[in-house]
């Protein structure tokens, strides 16, 4: 039983990146697990690389953090050298080089998304081996298995910002419902010409899919709303 709590931190995860007409929307769940124990139920898996490029991390928490840190460092130097914001393509390529050249040691799938003035909004998928693929939308993490069919049906070209974010939130919440390694809140990051917007959707704002319990702040609320007696008093030792 000990092994169930001492496994390395991994982000079971559901991550999504979607382009829309004018930018990109990145989405992720917030569960970090060590084996069966949820080490962090509100983690932020969407990390900033530059002002205009963010990355969704999945797989080993340590590996994805280190890769992000290195790429952020290289991009900062590159921006200073160039004298203008780096492009999303450059950021994705640096992530890819690190992933590919260290493929024997790393276990992390990443989605790089951002906006630049030359190519607009772009999403790059960099899965386990270090392949790089530019795609209009992409999904990753253990929870993504349950979303392939959903996206085949629900995705369309040229969505608006609101439509794209709605799609991402719906998708992550569907995956959370089915994947044990995904859970918590849904975080989204929208990147476009005007800048970056971060949103959080807590459990009570997400639709229920399969007769789950309604979200409550605490069990004590149920008890106090049910009985007319005074609310339970904590035990004293």
């Amino acid at each position: 039983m000990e092994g169930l709590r001492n496994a390395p931190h991994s982000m079971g995860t559901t991550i999504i990146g979607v382009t829309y007409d004018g930018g990109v929307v990145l989405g992720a769940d917030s569960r970090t697990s060590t084996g069966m124990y949820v080490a962090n139920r509100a983690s932020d898996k969407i990390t900033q690389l530059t002002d205009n490029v963010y990355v969704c991390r999945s797989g080993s928490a340590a590996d994805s953090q280190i890769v992000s840190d290195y790429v952020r460092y290289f991009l900062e130097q590159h921006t200073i050298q160039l004298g203008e914001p780096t492009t999303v393509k450059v950021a994705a390529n640096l992530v890819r080089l690190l992933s590919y050249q260290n493929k024997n040691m790393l276990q992390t799938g990443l989605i790089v998304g951002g906006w630049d003035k030359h190519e607009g909004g772009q999403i790059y998928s960099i899965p386990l081996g270090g392949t790089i693929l530019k795609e209009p939308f992409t999904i990753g993490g253990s929870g993504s298995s349950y979303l392939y069919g959903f996206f085949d049906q629900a995705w369309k070209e040229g969505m608006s910002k609101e439509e794209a974010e709605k799609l991402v939130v719906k998708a992550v919440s569907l995956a959370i419902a089915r994947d044990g390694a995904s859970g918590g809140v849904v975080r989204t990051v929208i990147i476009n010409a005007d800048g970056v917007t971060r949103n959080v959707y807590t459990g009570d704002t997400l639709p229920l899919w399969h007769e789950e319990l309604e979200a409550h702040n605490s069990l004590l609320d149920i008890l106090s709303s049910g009985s007319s007696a005074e609310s339970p008093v904590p035990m004293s030792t």
Partner: protein
Amino acid sequence: MMLPGSNRRIHAVHRHSGMAIAGLAADGRQIVTRAKSEATSYEKVYGEPIPVKELAERVASYVHLCTLYWWLRPFGCGVILGGYDCNGPELYMVEPSGVSYRYFGAAIGKGRQAAKTEIEKLKLSELTCRQGVIEVAKIIYGVHDEAKDKAFELEMSWVCEESNYQHQKVPDDLLEEAKAAAKAALEDMDDD
């Protein structure tokens, strides 16, 4: 006695950029080799063609390096670097001291003073690349001193929409057209 086309002064650095050398040809080769290697290694790491500004800075710092140590001699040549990146067409000149600036019109070599004067007369923002080719040919022929200088061969390259944004030699028919226009302009000048 020399075979035409054998004293190349213009070299391609990358798909989108090229370099013209003035001065010691062997030193120029070294700079071109370095520039080519900087361009390919940048693309390997960053996944995009090297911005011309960045390439110019790297060439300049390489040339400057050779002015820092007593056991190295400065490069005996200057270089004009032109390219077309995502920010549009750009022109840079690197001198043997390592100084590098961006220009809209530049000249190096023996006849550079006269050439610069001629360039300044042009309305650069209104010229198309084709027109530019003709004007440049006229200037080269114009500053060539028949009495003092040896015979020369005109070599031209361009990067523009017509060349599909690649650095390539100016097509033969346009080159001939430019040479003819330049010679005609010379005769007009002589007639005065």
